[in-house]
């Protein structure tokens, strides 16, 4: 079984982004980029399937600017077998990403695709569901557990009221939630080995996909800031403030 994982290059989760003064976006100059944390979980899950003998090959795909190759290298250093880079400087929105990944899936014919449930930059939470739709595959979103059982994937999903398990006919698509696994760090020897692993380069035009954005960005603003509060000295003072000043408890 071949497993395809998609990995996105995003502003590192530790960076507090700043909105540009002209309102055209956030400032990403001289900011650290990393693999989207949910995609690290996707890579890890694919590797575990390979290590348990369920998967034979793990292919990591990234889409976007030249530097996405670094993100693919990270996946390769974790243990993925090869990479595919869809190179473009255009802004890629989730529907376009789903179409590009579908074109790749049509070529690669994986039995399973694992992607992060959400990218921590645009916070859209769409690509996996869209890709499953375009492929006509079932989807197991927000997965906290994945069991491959013959030609079915059993996915336990984190839902608002608890957990839900669904059984999907393969080929299937899974999106990862935080509790699925704890991703490994790449060891130095594996980082060296990853440098020799192949990355195939392609473009949206090669894949025949129109990536024109459907949503036009009008402006980006800073959210309203909270006024700084006060420190209280005792529990009694806290209760007094909440009752008599903020009036949020009776």
């Amino acid at each position, binding site marked *: 079984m071949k497993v395809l994982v998609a990995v996105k290059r995003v*502003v590192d*989760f530790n960076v*507090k*982004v700043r*909105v540009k003064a002209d309102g055209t976006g*956030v400032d990403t100059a001289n900011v650290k980029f990393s693999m989207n944390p*949910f995609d690290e979980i996707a890579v890890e899950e694919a590797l575990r399937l390979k290590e348990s003998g369920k998967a034979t090959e793990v292919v990591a795909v990234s889409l976007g600017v030249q530097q996405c190759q670094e993100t693919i290298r990270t996946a390769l250093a974790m243990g993925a077998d090869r990479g595919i880079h869809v190179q473009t400087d255009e802004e890629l929105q*989730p*529907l376009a990403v789903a179409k590009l990944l579908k074109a790749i899936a049509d070529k690669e014919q994986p039995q399973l695709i694992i992607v992060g449930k*959400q990218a*921590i*930059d*645009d*916070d*859209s*939470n*769409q*690509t996996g*569901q*869209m890709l499953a*739709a375009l492929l006509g595959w*079932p*989807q197991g*979103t*927000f997965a906290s557990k994945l069991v491959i059982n013959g030609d079915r994937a*059993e996915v336990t*999903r984190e*839902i*608002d*009221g*608890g*957990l*839900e398990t*669904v*059984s*999907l*006919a393969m080929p299937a698509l899974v999106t990862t*939630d*935080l509790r699925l696994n704890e991703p490994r760090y790449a060891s130095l020897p594996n980082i060296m080995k990853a440098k020799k692993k192949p990355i195939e380069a392609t473009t949206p035009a090669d894949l025949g996909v129109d990536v024109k954005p*459907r*949503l*036009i*960005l*009008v402006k*980006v603003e*800073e*959210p309203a800031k*909270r006024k700084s*509060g*006060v*420190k209280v*000295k*005792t*529990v*009694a003072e*806290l*209760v007094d403030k*909440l009752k008599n000043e903020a009036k*949020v*408890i009776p």
Partner: protein
Amino acid sequence: MSVLVLAEHSHGKVLPATLTTVAAATKLGGDVHVLVAGADCKPAAEAAAKIAGVAKVLLADDARYAEPLAEPYAALIVSLAESYAAVLAASTTFGKNVLPRAAALLDVAQISDIVAVVGPDTFVRPIYAGNALATVKSTDAIKVITVRGTGFEPVKAEGGSAAIENATSADDPGLSKFVSRQESKTERPELTAARVIVSGGRGMGSGDNFKLIEAVADKLGAAVGASRAAVDAGFVPNDLQVGQTGKIVAPELYLAVGISGAIQHLAGMKDSKVIAAINKDEEAPIFQVADYGLVADLFQALPELAAELSK
């Protein structure tokens, strides 16, 4: 043209998230129709017909909708969407699962997690864990939208008298099967609908220690929440997680205990009306957003707080 809201319901009742979604839908202009899909869900359709501002309820009552599987639900939405200017659902795990699938089948972009409606095609949505607000304009014929509950005042659950019409079921692609559900049992209010939330973080140290949080929550009629660290450590179940990728809440009072205040957590609660924090580390970032901060050992402060609230 009308707009369609995908309702969320349980045991014959429409969930509060649907009321905020209808509120957003009314701002788009046009009649608001509500789709109630499920099995034996007529009582939920009758409840939806009473929601203020709803013009029509579409009822898809069919065994294939008994469980909220994305594949048959998306197929149903697609079969209805062509006659609507917009399709909306709440940004719950249900809405987030189903709606992007429907959007892709319709070949339109989805606008996720809107917090404001600027016009029929223009919306505001948070990005980068809420550290920026993006205004986006959709160029698609059908706007497919998920609505963040904290951005809108819910419409009234009573007062409407919409007609109920049967909707034709769509073909179920039959790709997925429901296996089981583990529902978290609690007598406390649901997190996203609670007026007061008491949340615990890594500082709680263990799941057992959450009893201290629960004791305070019970005095306040509050819901219990948690940071990612507390969920990852296994102190509490996943559905209590407040944050960028968990639940987004905006109660009247959010009391954060033993939570340092990572940006991912702040993203889920910084729109709360009043924030209070108890943490032994006076440098903890949570104090930068807290209206009232108490630097204290939570193991002393929580029992004291429960006692103080009993007075």
